[in-house]
């Protein structure tokens, strides 16, 4: 039997950049890079649904999440303090394949950087990360020890290249690309890599059950509608049907 929602006690819940929080829970949690958990940081019925959040890292009895405060659910979670607890279900979804070789590019937009630390730690090839942010860069200091090169772009130019991170990246330099971020960025990356380098993208959608039963989180793929929470969240770029 898989475990249902269980409690995780908060070790730290820190704002590492404006509106970006790093949450560390104590407990024996497991999972692969790219997998996610459904989080409930409240006992009440409202907010009704749990929130899907990627595994940012797992290490010696602790699990880390990196999240951006967007609406009510993440706002409530951001107010929780050390010693409070959260309910969580997981690990869920497929995750990234880490048994790969060669030169790998990780491309992230905004909070899409969340799964990349855990992923970079487990990849054995030569890893380069390309991270785009709106104005502040974050989380990269933790990733730096596990990658060969860090490339940064910000929309306002405050750190790194001024513009989009895709301006910096050439798919011809890599054997494999993993990307996570907003849909327009993923679309651009998929198009850039077409016919050149295999690319895998981590997709997002609103979720209810998180376990594959409600069909609420499906996206269009070349095989038909597929569930982000079950067949995904990681999909082969060329199999995702975008923009209809």
């Amino acid at each position, binding site marked *: *039997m*898989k*475990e*249902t*929602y269980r409690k995780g006690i908060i070790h730290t819940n820190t704002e590492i950049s404006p509106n970006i929080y790093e949450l560390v829970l104590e407990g024996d949690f497991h999972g692969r890079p790219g997998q996610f958990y459904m989080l*409930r940081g409240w006992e009440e*019925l*409202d*907010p*009704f*649904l*749990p929130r899907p959040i990627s595994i940012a890292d797992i290490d010696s009895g602790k699990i880390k999440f990196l999240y951006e405060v967007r609406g009510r659910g993440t706002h409530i979670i951001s107010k929780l303090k050390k010693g409070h607890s959260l309910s969580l*279900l997981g690990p869920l979804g497929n995750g990234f394949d880490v048994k790969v070789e060669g030169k790998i590019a990780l491309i992230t937009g905004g909070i899409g950087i969340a799964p990349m630390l855990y992923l970079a730690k487990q990849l054995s090839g030569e890893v380069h990360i390309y991270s785009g942010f709106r104005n502040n860069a974050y989380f990269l200091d933790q990733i730096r020890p596990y990658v060969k090169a860090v490339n940064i772009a910000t929309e306002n130019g405050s750190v790194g290249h001024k513009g989009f991170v895709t301006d910096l990246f050439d798919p011809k330099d890599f054997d494999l690309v993993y990307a996570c971020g907003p849909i327009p960025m993923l679309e651009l990356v998929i198009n850039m890599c077409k016919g050149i380098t295999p690319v895998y993208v981590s997709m997002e*959608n*609103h*979720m*209810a*059950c*998180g*376990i*594959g*039963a*409600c*069909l*609420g*989180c*499906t996206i*269009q793929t070349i095989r*038909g*509608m597929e569930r982000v929470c*079950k067949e995904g969240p990681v999909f082969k770029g060329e199999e995702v049907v975008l923009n*209809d």
Partner: protein
Amino acid sequence: MTKVDILGVELKNPIIAASGTFGFGREFDEYFPIEKLGAISTKGLTLNKREGNKGIRIYETASGLMNSIGLQNPGVKGFIEDDLPFLEDKDVVILANLGGSTIDEYLEGIELLNNTSIDFIELNISCPNVKEGGMAFGIKCSTAELVVSEAKKVSKKPLIVKLSPNAENIQEMAYSCVEAGADGLSLVNTFNALAIDIYKRKPVFENVTAGLSGPCIKPIALRMVYEVSKVVNVPIIGIGGIISWKDAIEFIMAGATAVQVGSGNFIKPDITMDIINGIEDYMRQEGIKSLEEIRGII
């Protein structure tokens, strides 16, 4: 202690997983043995496979959610070949939830299901009727009567008609369906509802409206079950916002023989187990030997 009888079929307890929130049980069976449930209502089936709706399908609301899944399902044949064998291996009562866009589609679906081991057909009449410009079968009594009486003629399985809360008058609708041959009723399906994205200045859902469910609908659903129980003499399955054993007992007191848990499954995959245990504890504490003692006491 908790067992109930619906049209001669014994359920271990009155808790049924609601259609569309539980798939065909496979995913949930990884979290608890689904055999512990009173019954399972399958994902809404249609004669032919459907891909479902595009765009956003789930939208959270205060104490509930709206959905516009669009009946994505493998079709009746796909269900019989790929999903029913899994359920047949389990000792659990099965309601095959069936939708359709024409009466013929419903009837062909029933004929295929007649020759299977399912226990009940749960006729979902909340589906849009293409012949009536997309108005659901379950809005007007005359349309509902037609589909139910035709379905009753071909069905070899007990026929439970699942009512829409959007019906013009729920009591008249219930009465009409029973007159037309429904062996039992389940209610309610989701409430037709609207959400608007104010930045995009557009409805959130591609189909404009979507179905509202969850604890926010419970008091209305409960009132409807209560009202319907006063005008019909067939078993009623209560549905709408049930997430605790107390909710379930309320529906039973309002006249339901059994209840379905839908959106509650999203709070916690094994929420139904908590509900069943809670009912047992309550019965023990209150000295209730059979749920019959409290059914319809309001």
